[in-house]
């Protein structure tokens, strides 16, 4: 079963999460810059003495497609322990189903498309 694990984490946790994913041997992932708001309502910024609410916080989104429930579980736990600060704004992890994968280079699909041949 192909699953997409999508994690929205704090900006400053990017390097830690990346290192943690590398450590468990994830085969690949895609990262993008997003802005988010949730319970954490941002901070107040001052420009020349006038205060403004900055509600949207910069976050980093990791997208990892994995080929089993176990991997999804493992990935979630790894991300969680790397990204946690216990303060509001730590982010969320979403899991959804992927029907099909293809590696553009080889045309491989399914399990082979996201796992390295030697594994």
């Amino acid at each position, binding site marked *: 079963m192909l699953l997409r694990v999508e994690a929205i984490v704090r900006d400053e946790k990017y390097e830690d999460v990346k290192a943690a994913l590398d450590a468990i041997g994830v085969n690949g992932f895609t990262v993008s810059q997003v802005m988010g708001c949730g319970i954490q309502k941002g901070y107040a910024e001052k420009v*020349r003495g006038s205060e403004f609410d900055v509600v949207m916080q910069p976050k980093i989104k990791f997208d990892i497609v994995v080929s089993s429930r176990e991997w999804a579980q493992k990935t979630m736990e790894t991300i969680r322990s790397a990204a946690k600060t216990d303060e509001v704004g730590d982010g969320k992890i979403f899991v959804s189903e992927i029907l099909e994968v293809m590696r553009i280079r080889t045309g491989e699909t399914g399990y082979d498309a996201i796992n390295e041949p030697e594994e």
Partner: protein
Amino acid sequence: MNTGNTAFILICSALVFLMTPGLAFFYGGLARRKNVVNTMMACTMVMGISVLLWVVCGYSLSFSGNNGGIIGNFDWSFFKNVGMDAGPYSSTIPNLAFAGFQMMFAMITAALITGSVVGRMNTKALFLFIVLWSFAVYYPLAHMVWGAGGFLSSIGSVDFAGGNVVHISSGISGLVLALMLGRRRGYEHVKYRVHNIPFVLLGAGLLWFGWFGFNAGSALAADGLAAHAFMTTAVSAAAALLSWMLIEFLADGKPTLVGASTGLVVGLVAITPGAGFVPIWAAIIIGLLVSPICYYGTRFIKQKLNIDDALDAFGCHGIGGIWGGIATGLFAQTSINSAARWNGLVFGDWHLFAAQLAGIAISIVVAAVGTYVCASIVKLIVPLRVTIKDEMIGLDLTQQGENAYPSFNGLD
């Protein structure tokens, strides 16, 4: 004719010129990302308008002849009779060099106004406004303050490098225009964040650099007075930079770069009228005080009066310029520059102080009335303001058809 003085004034003119592109970055950096090009365009088109009008008849109206102390005449239109020889304003430099130096002042003044109107003013209306305003406000004021027989100089009010002519006039004009335009859509709840802080510093750095030419060059010679004005300029800017940082530090422990940049600019504004009149220790005081004055002034205007002086053209240049004019009346010394007829108030003579207040008041009236009239005329021809839809999409795309950085969130 003196080659040292001529070299100095020509180079200072180039330095003052650079202030307008510098201002485009100071303002452009402060603007929202969707209004960057439009904000910079305002300063850029002013470069074209001010120079061309100056040659056509602006210089003549400001500095040739005298009609009732209010305005000059047309004798020097198209620089007729303005040549390589010395003119009436300085015997050691070519009349053309003096004309070039003064031209840059007309340019930066008009450009300063545009800070009040960003994010909502129609480019066509702004263009027309700048043309009319040059005739209605700038040339008369320049003549009154610096022209031979000018009314303000005749009452003894002094303005070394343009406190009245440049800063008060632009600040007040910006304020009136902001009032006539109304606030930007959503002024109360939208957050106007600075889109590019390094650009703000770039602008502030170029402004400071150019300001050395602005103030020191106003001695019209490479002499001790120029060196004095150079030093008062530096120290006032430095003091204001530090006092703005201090205010922010006391407020929340985090002095900002936008604050430090703003501080140095208001320090430069405040010393402008007195640069060649006040002693160096007074320049420190002028600089230290201008930051709190402008900091709280800006806040009061925007939050209490609810006026959308978008990038604080009034809050910084108007208020800072008024403080500078008053401070000149407090601290000027005839021993530094005998162009001042009396010492300032702290040395016990009230004459100059009174003349300064009168000069400031008259400058305010001229700028306010002139701006109101010009903008009212423009309104008959094109609307002052863009449509709400255009404002939301942003003025870059709707006024200039451009996007400042298309490939940063888009693709190359």
